[in-house]
């Protein structure tokens, strides 16, 4: 097929037999037939481009949709939720007229191909989602997972990803306050680069992605459109439509954080002057997505003149322009009389802005090129009526054997000396070691409101200088737990993030998730996904924290081997006065250490089983969400009433990991006594959920114990903040100096 004549709607209708490269674009035969049925004719090349990207797994959630519905169906009643699933990001009321928007997304595949740009544009994309809601971005977090720490390719991927996140986020002036870094061989060819962002606005500033009001102008602003990030479209562009053009363009986008910074400031200024009716960022599927979503969410149709799109490369075809994922672009709908002022603001910030179309009173999305109409569709069919699959799923046949391989039966240390060796090994293991080498490459001071940042249990940002109102965010996910039991593994991820937020003194309000799984075409993976979603939805309902949005990343697998199912859960919390926050670090010698919650022999999926035995089997720790809720209430009350001076949640690595971290951060040791009814090993290494360690000033001891007693939370005095060793009485002692060396030298030695 040649480029002449232009493949207009008229031409398509007149040439029904022309073969289009729908298969190369990733559409299945029945999907293509559905497009033909919707249009009543064959699609034009441009229409095919739009349908193919918008109906892709990434944009349409076609495999996951039937499961994700549970987040809506089981959503708990929450007065805090202002905007729920379906918009660019969810919005939560945090009081005093403030609203907070937050979301986590994946940028896994590009980050493996090109670690720096993949990770950088991941930050860029999530930040634009936040701006598109009307909010000023105030912080980012980055949950990351890589292959084995000592694998040569990890040394290629990790430094590039970290530099990319830093390079982009630092340049935007966004403090990086949290996230995780996890190593596991299962992520070798499929690192997980998830990126989260938080934004703050006043309630009245919430903006939505919709184009309403006939005659309103559609303005594309930000970077020029280039040939980057076309992905599947490159096939369309370079092989099928015109052989004379530059061939295969890189499928990974290239980021320019400076441009994005200008975009943030210019968009916020336009919001402030109330110039914007609707707004959408250009991310995956670029203009195809922005125009079809804006139009389908609004009251009318839309007419766009593609010739007006500012280009970086004048040879781009209309199909490529529609599919380009060039970064740092946004699309705003503006009333005609406000267009001049909008363009003035863009000019002030040296941002290119162009009117490319207008809202019509019809119900069609029409796109023109060189005077010909190349798209004429019902935008809803592009944006919302994509295929939905009920993929077959089945519990894998190896699941029983995996669960039967009980980690509780692994050989345990028998002497104090063996315990000591294993503690040293644990805190030095890549997953448990200090990540300072990584986080020191991120700016966590900028904006001047960072109250807590990694390695605290949650990041915390002050949002009102007068009242001290603040928000906290924690992200967690444990693929090992989820592999053993995806239903409970997902719940444990939520429980841990919820607990982490409460540990710092904030009240958990809402959830965003990034669901990272293997191929949905594998029934075993699909079962993991279905179980994880069901578990997460059930747990969110029970904890009263609605899912406000998120992202699904499938096909994280190389060949037949999928990654561990890895639901990453972000919990957002609010704190009335950040002066009341509780840090991890021990503050003062002599303060009493209390263990909150029940400790059981639970070693399935534990850090100990991985570090000491390279083992994964058995069942993950038991989930008790009512206990999590009670623990959170106690931690929040104790913080508000000044009963505790430091607190640390217990999770991977168990109690000893938590105590070592608190000791090293505070520069003060601890004397621990193994409580009655527990053996030293279980006391130190168990990963039972629903627990935390707190340091209580002696003056508060009675009051704190009374509170826990009255509310029925088990509380055990386990020692005192003291000296310069971590001393488990009768077993062993390790000096802080030795622990610091073990804890802090691992990552630089592997990666620097």
């Amino acid at each position, binding site marked *: 097929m040649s480029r002449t004549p232009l493949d207009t709607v008229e031409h398509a209708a007149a040439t029904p037999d022309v073969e289009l490269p729908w298969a190369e674009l990733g559409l299945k035969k029945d999907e293509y037939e559905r497009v033909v049925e919707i249009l009543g004719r064959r699609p034009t090349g441009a229409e095919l481009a739009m349908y193919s990207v918008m109906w892709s797994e990434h944009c349409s959630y076609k495999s996951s949709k039937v499961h994700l519905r549970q987040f809506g169906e089981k959503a708990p009643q929450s007065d805090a939720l202002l905007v729920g699933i379906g918009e660019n990001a969810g919005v939560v009321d945090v009081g005093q007229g403030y609203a907070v928007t937050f979301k986590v997304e994946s940028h896994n595949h590009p980050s493996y191909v090109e670690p720096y740009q993949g990770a950088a544009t991941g930050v860029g994309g999530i930040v634009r989602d936040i701006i598109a809601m009307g909010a000023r971005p105030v912080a980012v977090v980055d949950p990351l997972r890589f292959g084995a720490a000592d694998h040569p390719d990890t040394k290629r991927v990790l430094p590039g990803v970290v*530099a990319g996140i*830093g*390079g982009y986020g*630092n*340049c*935007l*002036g966004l403090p990086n306050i949290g996230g995780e870094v996890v190593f596991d061989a299962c992520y070798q060819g499929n690192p997980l680069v998830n990126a989260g962002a938080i934004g703050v606005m006043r309630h009245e500033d919430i903006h939505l992605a919709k184009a309403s009001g006939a005659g309103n102008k559609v303005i594309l602003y930000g970077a020029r459109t280039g040939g980057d990030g076309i992905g599947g479209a490159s096939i369309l562009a370079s092989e099928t439509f015109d052989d004379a053009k530059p061939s295969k363009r890189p499928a990974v986008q290239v980021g*320019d*954080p*400076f*441009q994005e*910074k*200008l975009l943030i400031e210019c968009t916020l200024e336009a919001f402030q002057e109330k110039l914007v009716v609707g707004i959408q960022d250009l991310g995956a599927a670029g203009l195809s997505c922005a125009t079809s979503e804006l139009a389908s969410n609004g009251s009318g149709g839309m007419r766009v003149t593609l010739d007006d799109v500012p280009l970086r490369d004048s040879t781009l075809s209309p199909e490529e322009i529609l599919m380009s994922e060039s970064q740092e672009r946004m699309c705003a709908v503006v009333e005609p009389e406000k267009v001049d002022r909008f363009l003035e603001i863009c000019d*002030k*910030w*040296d941002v290119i802005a162009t009117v490319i179309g207008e809202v019509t009173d019809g119900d069609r999305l029409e796109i023109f090129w060189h005077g010909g109409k190349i798209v004429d569709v019902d935008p809803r069919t592009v944006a919302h009526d994509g295929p939905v699959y009920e993929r077959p799923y089945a519990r894998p046949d190896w699941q029983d054997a995996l669960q039967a391989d009980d980690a509780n039966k692994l050989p345990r240390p028998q002497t104090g000396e063996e315990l000591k060796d294993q503690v040293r090994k644990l805190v030095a293991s890549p997953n448990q070691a200090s990540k300072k080498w990584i*986080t*020191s*490459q*991120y*700016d*966590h*001071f*900028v*904006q*001047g*409101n*960072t*109250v807590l940042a990694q390695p605290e249990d949650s990041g915390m940002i*002050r949002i009102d*200088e007068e009242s001290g109102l603040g928000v906290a965010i924690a992200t967690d996910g444990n693929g090992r737990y989820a592999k053993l039991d995806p239903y409970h593994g997902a719940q444990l991820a939520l429980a841990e993030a919820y607990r982490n937020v409460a540990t710092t003194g904030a009240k958990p309000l809402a959830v965003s998730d990034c669901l990272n799984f293997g191929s949905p075409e594998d029934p075993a993976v699909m079962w993991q996904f279905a179980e994880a979603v069901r578990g997460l939805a059930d747990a969110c309902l029970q904890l009263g924290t609605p899912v406000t949005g998120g992202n699904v990343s499938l096909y994280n697998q190389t060949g037949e081997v999928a990654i561990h199912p890895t639901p990453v859960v972000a919990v957002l919390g609010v704190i009335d006065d*950040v*002066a009341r926050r509780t840090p991890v670090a021990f503050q003062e010698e002599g303060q009493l250490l209390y263990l909150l919650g029940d400790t059981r022999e639970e070693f399935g999926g534990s850090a100990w089983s991985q570090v000491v035995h390279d083992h994964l089997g058995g069942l993950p720790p038991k989930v008790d969400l009512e206990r999590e809720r009670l623990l959170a209430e106690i931690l929040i009350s104790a913080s508000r009433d000044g009963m505790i001076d430091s607190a640390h949640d217990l999770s991977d690595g168990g109690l000893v990991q938590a105590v070592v971290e608190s000791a090293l951060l505070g520069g003060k040791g601890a004397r621990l006594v193994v409580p009655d009814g527990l053996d030293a090993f279980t006391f130190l290494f168990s990963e039972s959920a629903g627990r935390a360690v707190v340091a209580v000033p002696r003056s508060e001891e009675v009051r704190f114990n009374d509170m826990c007693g009255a509310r029925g939370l088990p509380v055990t005095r386990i020692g005192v903040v003291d000296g310069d060793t971590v001393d488990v009485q009768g077993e062993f002692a390790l000096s802080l100096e030795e622990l610091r060396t073990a804890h802090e030298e691992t990552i630089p030695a592997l990666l*620097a």
Partner: protein
Amino acid sequence: MTARIGVVTFPGSLDDRDTQRAIRLAGAEPVALWHKDKNLHQVDAVVLPGGFSYGDYLRAGAISRFSPVMETVIEQAKVGLPVLGICNGFQILTEAHLLPGGMLGNDHLHFICRDQKLRVENADTAWTADYTAGQEIHIPLKNMDGRYVADPYTLDKLEAEGRVAFRYLDFNPNGSLNDIAGITNEAGNVVGLMPHPEHAVEPLVGSGRTDGLPFFTSILKKLVNA
């Protein structure tokens, strides 16, 4: 009446609002200045804040130095206007030749963010009078291009004239020559440093210390008493 201290916003400035807050907390009045506007709006002093102005394209500070506001800042600084350059602001001051030397990429090639120990070497400038010479302080540092370099003649001159204002202690975070963290011009009205004093002004946020506040109280006292 208090002092009016201008903070310039360039495209890509990041710590401009934080610097305004620090000025306010010190008791002075922050005034936002725009890079395209030559008019300094009657301010008594100017801070060039941190960030990545113009994306650090070409070289950190190299483009900003030519912005309209800098024409006036350069002209006025030469006749005594107090000017403080923080991080990217320091880079701009060296590009503008208000301070000697220049900044290269950190020797370890990574961005670095840490609470950095410094020694105040010169407490006689417009921006450091509230410190005492020899005082040890902690100020957050966060940059990619923080390695201070100058030719041997310039270094010797800076040292001989006591114009090294701040020096890194315990750990040189970027390979700066002579552990130099900040310098002043001969007159003491222009000071530049890589660390960020505006992020050490409140006990609750940032580094949790207030070691950076004297920058802003120093200038306030000087201006009010003038």
